[in-house]
């Protein structure tokens, strides 16, 4: 392929001619949304408004990140 000769930086501004088909994106999209949801949930809300695990150790451990990322903490 001719594009192999180009450096990555040179391709930053070159539009993609063929988009990735939606069927290939959807399974990963489900994974991405679930993973992002879990990450945000444990940093942002677990052992605050709702609890999956009992106790306060997750809440207390990510306490500062929860406040500084803008989530209501306690």
């Amino acid at each position, binding site marked *: 392929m001719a594009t192999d000769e180009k450096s990555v930086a040179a*391709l930053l501004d070159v539009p993609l*001619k063929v988009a990735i088909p939606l069927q290939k994106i959807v399974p990963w999209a489900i994974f991405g*949304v679930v*993973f992002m949801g879990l990450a945000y949930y444990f940093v942002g809300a677990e052992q605050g408004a709702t609890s999956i695990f009992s106790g306060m150790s997750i809440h207390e*451990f*990510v306490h500062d990140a*929860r*406040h*500084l990322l803008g989530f*209501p903490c306690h």
Partner: protein
Amino acid sequence: MVGQLVFRGFIVGIVAGLLAFGWAKTFGEPAVAVAINFETAQHEAEAAAAVAAGKPRPPDDPVIFSRAVQSGIGLLTGMVVAGAGLGCLFAILFAFANGRVGNLGPGPISILIALFGLISVYVVPALKYPANPPSVGEPDTIKYRTGLYFLMMAISIATTLGALRLRRSLAPRYGSWNGSLLALGAYLVVIAAAFTLLPGINEVPATFPAVTLWNFRIASLGIQTVLWGSIGVMFGYVGAWASRQ
């Protein structure tokens, strides 16, 4: 290909989380420290008043992790986990947008996703329900406040997606400029309605230092900007790399 993008998004997100930690440590933690001293002083004053009135001293909050852990490895963990989650989602948004949005290369697309993401996931929800340091907010209303915050976030994200869709359908008929303005107008109407209809939350203690509150909120905005911004810049390179594959 999409799996490769997601994996790289995960790595980029972790790096962004480390950068956000650096920002949080430098600009956020001083305000958190002031807020926690305020909280401790308030609790001590309440305890002294209770003892003076002949009542039992209210219990201190149990210390599970020291402040050093909370402001160190705990803060780092929170930032990195949030960054990793954001990075994965970013990869999905990029996979969808790349080649579908105008005539833009992977670099500008990545930056646009970061900009729209920062505004819809953080800035707009925070304009209604701003970040609060420790000792701001009644513990009794945490469920209510968290519910409202996530509701505002959902409305904000849905409105951005709706406006982008609207712009796309209006552009052929009214032209790119007018179509964009109409979509922006519709966006502002919905957000203004949400800001007006959702209840306000004002639980800042009367004597809490205003400067600390301001510094804390600005630090929070900075952290989110570093998080989204660095993912946007780094993922531009990931996208350009993907073009070669």
